[in-house]
């Protein structure tokens, strides 16, 4: 075989045909993995939820304990997401617009909660505010309950979602640079006008993307919240904890009904994410063009 040079058109065609089969095989494998690992679990959730009909499904998600769990989840999301948005914008601002010593250390610290187990995230607040904790006696004297109550759940949720917004904004703002801000200042804008009219519209989609990811995690956090919640039904249960309780009581249909509610929210979040991502890619493309 001396005719393996690619100048030989038939050899090239053979290689091409080999590619087609390899390609078909890989695509089929991707579909198989996708079905086995991602689609089937979804199917199971919906299937189990509807096992006893739509009536049972609605009873399960509308019973008072489920609704109060929903309410607590919304409170945790409603407090942690805005706080992390403000933090994320501030952190991204100082990291992307200035150079200073220790910047990479700061970025590492911002990412730190990602590499800490959620159980530890809960544990540290118990150690701070629990009865045996640093502030425990003081809190007890003043009759303030943090751990095994709503504030603890909110704190744990904030901890696990700290990096999301900052992480999305930092690369975007670094790519965009500071020239538009400088131009705005030269044209007479004050600091607030510059931020509001120039910076914010430019990072809008990155911000939405970060909020979406942050919301998803805040809504679904389980381990950290589980440690600090105390599992009091109707009081300190979030939706994921409610799912756990129902499941452990062998009330599978109810557990999967509430789970499918969370699943629907997750799918909605994925759609939002996809949409904001496409807008960011457009922004990045226009930034790269300049």
């Amino acid at each position: 075989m001396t005719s393996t040079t690619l100048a030989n058109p038939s050899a090239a065609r053979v290689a091409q045909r080999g590619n087609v089969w390899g390609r078909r095989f890989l695509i089929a494998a991707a579909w198989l993995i996708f079905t086995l690992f991602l689609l089937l679990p979804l199917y199971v959730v919906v299937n189990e939820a509807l096992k006893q009909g739509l009536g049972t499904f609605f009873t399960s998600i509308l019973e008072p304990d489920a609704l109060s769990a929903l309410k607590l989840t919304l409170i945790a999301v409603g407090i942690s997401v805005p706080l992390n948005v403000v933090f994320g914008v501030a952190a991204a601002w100082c990291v992307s617009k200035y150079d200073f010593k220790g910047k990479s250390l700061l970025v590492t610290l911002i990412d730190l909660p990602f590499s800490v187990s959620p159980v530890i995230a809960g544990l540290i607040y118990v150690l701070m505010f629990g009865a045996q904790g640093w502030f425990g006696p003081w809190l007890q004297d003043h009759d303030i309950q943090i751990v095994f109550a709503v504030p603890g759940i909110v704190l744990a949720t904030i901890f696990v979602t700290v990096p999301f917004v900052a992480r999305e904004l930092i690369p975007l703002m670094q790519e965009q640079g500071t020239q538009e801000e400088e131009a705005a200042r030269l044209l007479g804008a004050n600091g607030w006008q510059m931020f509001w009219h120039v910076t914010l519209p430019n990072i809008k989609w990155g911000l939405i993307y970060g909020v979406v990811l942050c919301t998803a995690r805040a809504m679904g956090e389980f381990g950290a919240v589980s440690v600090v919640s105390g599992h009091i039904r109707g009081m300190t249960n979030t939706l994921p904890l409610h799912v756990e309780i129902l499941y452990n009581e062998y009330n599978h249909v109810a557990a999967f009904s509430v789970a499918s509610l969370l699943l629907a929210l997750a799918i909605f979040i994925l759609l939002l994410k996809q949409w904001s991502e496409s807008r960011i890619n457009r922004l990045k493309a226009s930034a790269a063009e300049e």
Partner: protein
Amino acid sequence: MSRRISPVIPGFGLTLGYTLFYLSLLVLIPLAAMFIKTTQLSWDEFIAIISAPRVLAALKLSFVTALIAALINGVIGTLLAWVLVRYKFPGRKIIEAMIDLPFALPTAVAGIALTALYTPTGLIGQFADSLGFKVAYTPLGISLALTFVTLPFVVRTLQPVLADIPREVEEAATCLGAKPLQVIRYVLLPALLPAWLTGFSLAFARGIGEYGSVIFIAGNMPMKTEILPLLIMVKLDQYDYAGATAIGVLMLVVSFILLLFINLLQRRISTTS
């Protein structure tokens, strides 16, 4: 350039101050509190807690199942990333969007869904059962649950790198006489390896700490299917704060060493290639 601050972009002091304040209050001080709490134990007491057979068994289980999950993801994640970047095919957009499902789906939901899927009466579990092996309530089940929750890491870190490798590079290699396997070995792998390691280590670290998706499928038998994060919960339920804290410190140290090791490996690879 040590400290370059533009005089016209305001807010450096304010934003840096707020960032440090927020991080200290919510992350750094509480984490420090855990380390300070452990200093209340003597060294011997600390060693006694973390070398208890139950702790060591849990550590080994968490480590091995997370490693297996990360390795599985290293293979199927690479495959998915490759297919999504390189090929256009029906359903590509759906797969692309759904890859992030494990990040969006609450872990508890993933946990009960996977358990239902893999119990001996479940959709997949019954096949396994007829072949004579169990998935749910075994380390295999734990690995599968971890594979699910960490699936996006390898895919998402590889995708942008793959997209950035121009096809011309492969074509150039082919024109220089390289066979397909040689193109993969000498052209693609070196370019992908750093990102692959990043994805792998993220999945590994997340797997060691993961709780929600695992506890349903694990069975939680001490010495057999009890993961390390669960052991912290057990200690807390017994009001054994010292024990929980010691295990927490152990976990943090293990994942820190792990990340450090992979970081060094990555540096080594990027300097040799």
